[in-house]
C-alpha cells in the first residue's frame, strides 16, 4: 500500500505523550459525541504552553501525574464538523476557539492535564458552550492564541485592574507580554515590563508596555532578599511609581521576582501570582502584612474570559500575530516541543498546524 493510501486510512492522527520524554504519533478512532450538548472540532492550529513541555519532561505538575498516555496540547482553534442535537451555540462549519477546561459535568476535565487527552489530534470533542465563534477576519492562528489571551484576561480580572492604575509585570514571555497588553487595553496608565533578557524587553516595549526594566541577578555574597528590595526600589524610582505600583502581576515564577514584586507593590495594592516556578519560595510576608497587600493567585480562566479574549483579538486591540515566532506542521510536533523546551529568547509562541 502506498504512503498516500496508508494516510487515507488514518482516522484521527494524534500526538501522544506515552511516558516521560516519550512522545509518538498514534492513530486513534474518530471520537464520538458524549451527549447531545457536545460538538466535534477539526483542529486547525494549536499553540504550545510551558505546561505541555513540563508534562513531557517531568511527567507531573503538582498532584497531576502522568499515569497513562495522553494526547498533548490545549491551546487550539478549529472548525466545527459535528454537533449534538441540543446544541444552540454553534453549527457545523463555524470556526471556533476551544476552551480546553470543562468543570463539573460531572467530572472536571482539562485537555492535556492527566488523565485527560488534549487537542493535538485531528478531532477533539468538547461541550458546545466551551467553543467561541471567531469572526471571519480572525485567522485560525489568532484563534489558537485566544487561550493565552484568556489567561491574561483572568489575571487582569483577579487583579481588578482599572483605568488610571500603574502596573508592574514581572516576566515578558507570552503571558507577561499579554498581561501588559490587556492591562493597557483595560485602561492602565503605566505598564512596566520586567525581565532579564534584552530581546524580551525589546518585544514588550513594542507590544504593550509603556516602559521596561532590565533586572539583575544578585551578586555572590549579597543577601537575595535585600537585592530584590533594591531592584524594587530602582523600578519604583525609574518609573516614578512613588510608594509603589497599584498592581503587580508576577508572570515569571522566579523567586527573586516574587520578592521584588511584593516590595514594589504600594500600600494597599494588589499582587497577583500567575507564574509557576519553585513551589516553595522565600516570601517577604511581613512586608506584605505591614503594607496591607491583597495577594491573590490566578489560574487559567473563568466565565467571561474567553469572550473577552476573542473580542480583544478580533477588535485588533491585541495583535497576537506578533507573538507567533515559529510554525510547524502536525508531523513536526516533536520538533516544535523541542524548540519550546530549548527556551531560546527569540522564541515566543510556537504553533502546530492541525491534521489536514
Amino acid at each position, binding site marked *: 500500500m502506498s504512503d498516500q493510501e496508508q494516510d487515507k486510512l488514518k482516522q484521527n492522527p494524534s500526538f501522544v505523550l506515552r511516558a516521560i520524554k516519550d512522545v509518538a504519533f498514534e492513530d486513534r478512532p474518530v471520537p464520538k459525541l458524549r451527549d447531545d450538548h457536545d460538538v466535534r472540532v477539526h483542529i486547525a492550529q494549536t499553540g504550545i504552553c510551558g505546561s505541555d513541555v513540563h508534562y513531557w519532561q517531568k511527567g507531573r505538575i503538582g498532584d497531576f501525574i502522568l499515569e497513562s498516555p495522553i494526547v498533548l496540547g490545549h491551546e487550539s482553534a478549529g472548525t466545527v464538523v459535528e454537533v449534538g442535537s441540543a446544541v444552540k451555540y454553534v453549527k457545523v462549519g463555524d470556526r471556533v476557539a476551544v476552551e480546553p477546561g470543562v468543570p463539573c459535568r460531572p467530572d472536571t476535565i482539562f485537555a492535556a492535564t492527566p488523565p485527560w487527552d488534549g487537542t493535538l489530534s485531528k478531532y477533539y470533542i468538547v461541550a458546545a458552550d466551551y467553543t467561541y465563534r471567531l469572526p471571519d477576519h480572525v485567522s485560525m492562528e489568532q484563534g489558537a492564541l485566544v487561550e493565552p489571551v484568556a489567561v491574561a484576561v483572568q489575571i487582569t480580572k483577579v487583579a481588578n485592574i482599572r483605568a488610571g492604575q500603574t502596573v508592574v509585570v514581572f516576566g515578558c514571555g507570552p503571558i507577561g507580554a499579554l498581561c501588559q497588553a490587556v492591562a493597557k487595553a483595560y485602561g492602565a496608565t503605566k505598564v512596566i515590563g520586567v525581565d532579564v533578557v534584552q530581546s524580551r524587553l525589546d518585544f514588550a516595549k513594542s507590544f504593550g508596555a509603556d516602559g521596561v526594566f532590565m533586572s539583575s541577578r544578585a551578586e555572590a555574597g549579597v543577601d537575595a532578599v535585600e537585592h530584590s528590595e533594591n531592584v524594587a526600589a530602582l523600578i519604583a524610582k525609574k518609573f516614578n511609581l512613588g510608594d509603589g505600583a497599584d498592581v503587580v502581576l508576577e508572570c515569571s515564577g522566579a523567586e527573586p521576582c516574587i520578592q521584588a514584586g511584593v516590595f514594589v507593590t504600594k500600600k494597599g495594592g494588589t499582587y497577583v501570582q500567575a507564574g509557576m516556578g519553585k513551589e516553595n519560595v522565600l516570601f517577604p510576608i511581613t512586608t506584605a502584612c505591614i503594607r496591607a497587600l491583597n495577594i491573590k493567585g490566578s489560574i487559567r480562566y473563568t*466565565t467571561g474570559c474567553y469572550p473577552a479574549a476573542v473580542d480583544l483579538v478580533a477588535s485588533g486591540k491585541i495583535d497576537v500575530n506578533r507573538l507567533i515566532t515559529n510554525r510547524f506542521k502536525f508531523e513536526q510536533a516533536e520538533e516544535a516541543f523541542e524548540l519550546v523546551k530549548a527556551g531560546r529568547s527569540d522564541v515566543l509562541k510556537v504553533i502546530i498546524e492541525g491534521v489536514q
Partner: protein
Amino acid sequence: MLVQNLFVDVDGTLMIPAQNLSFVLEKTGVVKYEDRPVPKLESPYDVLVNVKFTGICGSDVHYWQHGAIGSFIVKAPMVLGHESSGIITAVGDKVSTVKVGDRVAMEPGIPCRRCVRCKEGKYNLCVDMRFAATPPIDGTLAKYYSLPEDFCYKLPESVSLEEGALMEPLAVGVHITRQAAIKPGQSVVVFGAGPVGLLCCAVAKAYGADKIIAVDMNEERLKFAKKYAATHIVASQRESASDSAARISKVCDLGLGADVAIDASGAEPCIQAGIHVLRTGGTYVQAGMGKTDITFPIGAMGAKELNVKGSFRYNSGDYETAVALVSSGRVSVKELITGKVKFTDAESAFNDVKAAKGIKTLIEGVKD
C-alpha cells in the same frame, strides 16, 4: 372517591392502589388527586425521593387562585408544591454523595448548568431553570419525586423531616440576607412578618445584626416576630412613607437610619418606607412580590447613594448554609410549623395559607 391512597369505586369495591398519588392543579381554582407514574431516573446522577413533608408558599396559592405569575401560565394540569423533604428510595448508578435511606431536604429548581449565569454561580438566574410547580414543571406534592443528587441535602440526625421542609424558605431567607451583606452590629428593618420575613429576621440575628426590626400590619404576626427573632416590632399605620420611616427610626433608636432594609411584603407603602428608613449608603433588598410596577422614591435612593438589589430564590451555598444554621441551633424553624395535615387534606392547607392562618402549614407525604 379517594380513601387514603386507594381509589375506591362507588359501590365500595377497592380499585388499584395509586402508585404515585399526586396533588394536581387542574386549572385555575381547581385541584384534584391523580395517580401518576412513578418518575424514572433520567440520569445516573439522579435519585428518587419518597416525599415526607411539603410546606406551601404564596406562589403555590397564587397559581391555584390566578393560574399565572407573570409570564408563567398554567396551561396544563400541574402537580403543586416545592418546599419538601423526604427519604431517598432509589439512586442512579453514579450517585456517590447520598444513599438509599438518607433523609434529605430537596432543592426544587434545577438549572441548565451551561449558560453564563449558571457558570458564574448565579444559577437562580438561569433562563432555562426548571422549577418545581412553576409551569410547566410538576411539583413535589406527590408520593415520589426525582432530582439530581447534588440538589439533595442530607439532614443531620438532630434535624427532623418536618424541619427539612422549612429548608427551602430558610434558603430564601439566607439568600436575601447575603444579598443584603448583613454584618455584625448592623441594624436591619424587615417589612413583612410572614414566613420569609420571619426567617430573614432569624438569619440576620445569626449573622450578628444588633437591631432587627419587624414591621407588619398584623398584630399577631408582630407578637410572634418579637418572640421569635426580632428585637423590635413596629405596627404599620396609615401615614406617608417618610413619616413611617421617621417613626420607625425614632421608636427603634436608629440614629441616622437603618443599615439594611428588606422588603418581604411586596406592598408599595413598605417599599417606599424601606428606602426612607435607610441611612446614607445603606442597602435595600427587594424580596417580596406584590404589584409589578409601583411609585418608587428614586430621588432618595440616588441622593443617599443606596445599594438597591433584588433577591430571587437562592443559589450556591444557600441550602448548605440553611441546613448548617438549623443543625447548629443558630436558627430554629420548629416554631414556624403551626399545622400539619394529611396528604388527602391538602386542599384545606391551601385554604389556610390563602386566609393567612398560621405561619407554615405542612402537608404530610402520601401514606403507604
